[in-house]
């Protein structure tokens, strides 16, 4: 045991975050592999270990004999202070190796507000932040995940972005690196060799030119082998790829402390605000047999007491009913509780919930997202008030006491009438309960988040509300929602503004990130860490005009920073959806017929995702 580390661990909260040694970790002789990779989740251990993508990539990398994948997370404030005071570089959990001594330091980009934490982790690892300052002796910094679909705000810091499904492409890239290292290639020679591969984006190979108004004039390649557009990696058949059946079992309690089984990838609903619904197309399912086998194997290998399904919309799985029935039976046998998130609330689902929750009913959740049918049509959220009220009636009849509603405010074309609609729905649900004659305690929670336009969605050109506008709308809603039995929650306004800056940011934001890091910004998705004053100072010192990124409506002809990434959904489709939104016209779920998003030019789309 490292004595200096041991001494530090005695002084911090939850020291088990920093010790590794969990069940099912990969144990290898570091000298015996060709490539060493560190998978970093730029947030605390409890958050990072709840992310299934980590387990999937960890497994797919470590099953290769020549690759060793270890893990690193952001330390909490107390541990960070001690690491800095004692000059201990950030280390891997598996072998306690300083990260600066490995080949690759890889970050998963799950949300924009983790970007400053990436810089902080690089600094704690004693690695220069800027790509151009890192010599051959430092690890290659690589990043992937949903936020890599607009990689530009991180272009100054990251050497390679890997866009799209990583299960095959990442291990392949690591193998190529191992060979390149044996051949004695420099980093740049290696980058040139891989630049043309699907999914690989190397920002250093592009120079960006701007117009006087700050918009982009052109991307020019400075290396001929780099692609004009980076196509994302797509695994056409997820049935074939390895899903971990022996995931790491954390020792301390994490946010999602359970076995997780991915049923399918992608979504056919086409909500216009949703990035996941666009960038994970087409819908790709695992067979029911495979799901059952993998899930049961995972339970046997972990001892987990809870199993949850992972997808963008649980009930959309083509064989959901037989799957749910079989899972219920098998879980019951094993004393394992089953959790089925985001169910569509029809009679079957109620029967399932009744069976798996019994008297321990958790809250029932609906996500109408908008308060009026008009606005729901704008965003293409195919849920009607009748759907909600019918389900609520049934739920109350079955004994549910808590209804949770999720809405977004600041959506394109929104007026105060739409906000009134939010209060109306909450009030109507309370009335349904009152009229049911059930009596007793009853609670409706209304959670409101602020709309953040995302890259690669039909709303990518839209203006976001100003921070003050969000605040005004929250105040308005708070008054409207001061109804007995209704609780109102909302997100921090300023955080949503900054999130929007980076969600559609360009390379110029590297300066802002660097300044924010210097001011001490980190772990910004935690309200106890997010410090508005520091951010405002960083904005000022970096000379950033945030309105340029947030409240500015973009034109269809503007070159967008993320145009360099091709999600394989056509820009033409996004534009047509954007136009239909303004006209309040809906687009049907593409399960019932192709709507022409363009994904099938690239890969076969099974529409409904029906497995045959």
């Amino acid at each position, binding site marked *: 045991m490292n004595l200096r580390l041991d001494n530090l661990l005695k002084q911090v909260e939850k020291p*088990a975050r920093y010790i590794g*040694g969990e*069940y099912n970790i990969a144990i290898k002789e570091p000298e015996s592999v060709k490539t060493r990779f560190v998978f970093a989740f730029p947030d605390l251990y409890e958050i990072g270990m709840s992310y299934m993508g980590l387990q999937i990539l960890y497994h797919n990398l470590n099953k290769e004999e020549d690759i060793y994948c270890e893990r690193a997370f952001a330390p909490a404030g107390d541990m960070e202070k001690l690491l800095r005071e004692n000059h201990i570089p950030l280390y891997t959990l598996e072998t306690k190796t300083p990260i600066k001594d490995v080949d690759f330091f890889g970050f998963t980009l799950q949300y924009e507000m983790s970007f400053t934490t990436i810089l902080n982790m690089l600094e704690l690892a004693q690695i220069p932040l800027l790509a151009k300052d890192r010599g051959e002796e430092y690890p290659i910094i690589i990043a992937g995940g949903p936020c890599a679909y607009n990689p530009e705000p991180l272009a100054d810091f990251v050497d390679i972005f890997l866009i799209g499904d990583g299960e095959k492409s990442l291990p392949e890239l690591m193998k190529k690196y191992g060979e390149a290292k044996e051949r004695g290639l420099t980093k740049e020679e290696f980058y040139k060799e891989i630049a043309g591969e699907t999914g690989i984006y190397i920002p250093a190979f592009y120079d960006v030119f701007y117009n006087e108004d700050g918009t982009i004039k052109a991307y020019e390649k400075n290396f001929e082998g780099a692609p004009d557009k980076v196509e994302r990696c797509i695994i056409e058949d997820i049935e074939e790829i390895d899903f971990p059946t022996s995931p790491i079992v954390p020792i301390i*309690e994490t946010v999602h402390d359970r076995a997780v089984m991915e049923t399918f990838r992608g979504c056919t609903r086409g909500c216009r605000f949703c990035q996941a619904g666009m960038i994970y197309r087409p819908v790709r399912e695992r067979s029911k047999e495979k799901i059952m086998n993998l899930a049961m194997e995972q339970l046997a*290998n972990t001892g987990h007491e809870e199993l949850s399904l992972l997808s963008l919309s649980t009930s959309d799985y083509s064989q959901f009913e037989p799957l749910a029935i079989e899972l219920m039976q098998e879980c019951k046998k094993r004393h394992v509780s089953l959790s089925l998130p985001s169910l569509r609330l029809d009679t079957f689902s109620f029967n399932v919930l009744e069976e798996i929750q019994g*008297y321990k009913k958790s809250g029932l959740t609906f996500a109408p997202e908008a308060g009026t049918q008009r606005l729901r049509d704008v965003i293409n959220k195919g849920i009607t008030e009748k759907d909600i009220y019918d389900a609520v009636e049934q739920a109350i009849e079955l004994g549910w006491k808590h209804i949770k509603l999720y809405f977004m405010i600041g959506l394109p074309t929104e007026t105060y009438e739409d906000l009134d609609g939010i209060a109306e729905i909450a009030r109507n649900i309370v009335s349904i309960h009152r009229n049911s004659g059930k009596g007793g305690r009853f609670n409706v929670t209304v959670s409101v988040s602020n709309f953040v336009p995302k890259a690669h969605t039909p709303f990518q050109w839209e203006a976001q509300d100003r921070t003050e506008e969000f605040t005004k709308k929250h105040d308005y809603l708070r008054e409207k929602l001061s109804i007995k039995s209704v609780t109102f929650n909302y997100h921090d306004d300023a955080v949503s503004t900054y999130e929007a800056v980076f969600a559609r940011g360009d390379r110029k934001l590297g300066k802002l990130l660097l300044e924010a890091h210097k001011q001490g910004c980190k772990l910004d998705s935690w309200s106890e860490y997010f410090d508005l004053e520091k951010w405002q100072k960083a904005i000022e010192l970096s000379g950033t005009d945030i309105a340029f990124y947030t409240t500015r409506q973009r034109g269809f002809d503007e070159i967008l920073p993320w145009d360099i990434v091709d999600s394989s959904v056509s820009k033409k489709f996004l534009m047509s959806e954007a136009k239909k939104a303004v006209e309040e016209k809906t687009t049907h779920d593409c399960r019932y017929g192709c709507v022409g998003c363009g994904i099938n030019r690239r890969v076969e789309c099974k529409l409904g995702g029906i497995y045959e």
Partner: protein
Amino acid sequence: MSKYIIKFAKEGYMKYTSHLDMLRLFQRAFKRCNIGLAHSQGFNPHPKMGFAQPLSLGYTAADEILEFETVEDFLPADIKESVGKIMPQGLIIKTCSRLTDNVKSLAAIVDEAEYTVTFPIDADLADYGKVVKDYLAQEHIVAYKRQKKTKKMVEVDIRSKIRDIQLVDGAKLTLRLILDCGSTSNQSPEQVITTFIDFAKLDVVRYDVEVERTRISFDRKLHI
């Protein structure tokens, strides 16, 4: 229903695993080994399994005790073998045996515990044998303890709960503490360590001191 006890050691980084995390760790281990634990009755059944005495975060231990009840009968040797195989590094299953004594729970009859405390100080720096004797010769030893409910620091006299302290041979100053333990009267080593540091005027900080629990004893003779 069959009752068993497992004796185990907790070493290295595992000392940073808390009491609740240890419970969950064993629960999952039994599940992986297909050893079905008996459950309590009622609305919220929980597995019949528990440690004889919780161990503070940061302490290593040589001889901890876990008691549990299974639905089916297993051979203790088989339990030791299968659970032992899947323990994380630092958790060592020493023995597994049947609990034949007729007691409701071991936790209720814990009486005494022994700890080995190592200070980062050369043992020959002073006559620590005499210091220990003088420390124990005090009529009252006043320590501060945070009250669980009010979170206020309160003064407590710990002398009567210290059964003995012995100097252990070694390069570094090492003490063996024998303290009250269990539900009747319980003394944590923490107050003993801090008051001893003050009394002996040792130039050390708490987080440089290593503590290991070496024994848990009961108020009666058991066949375990």
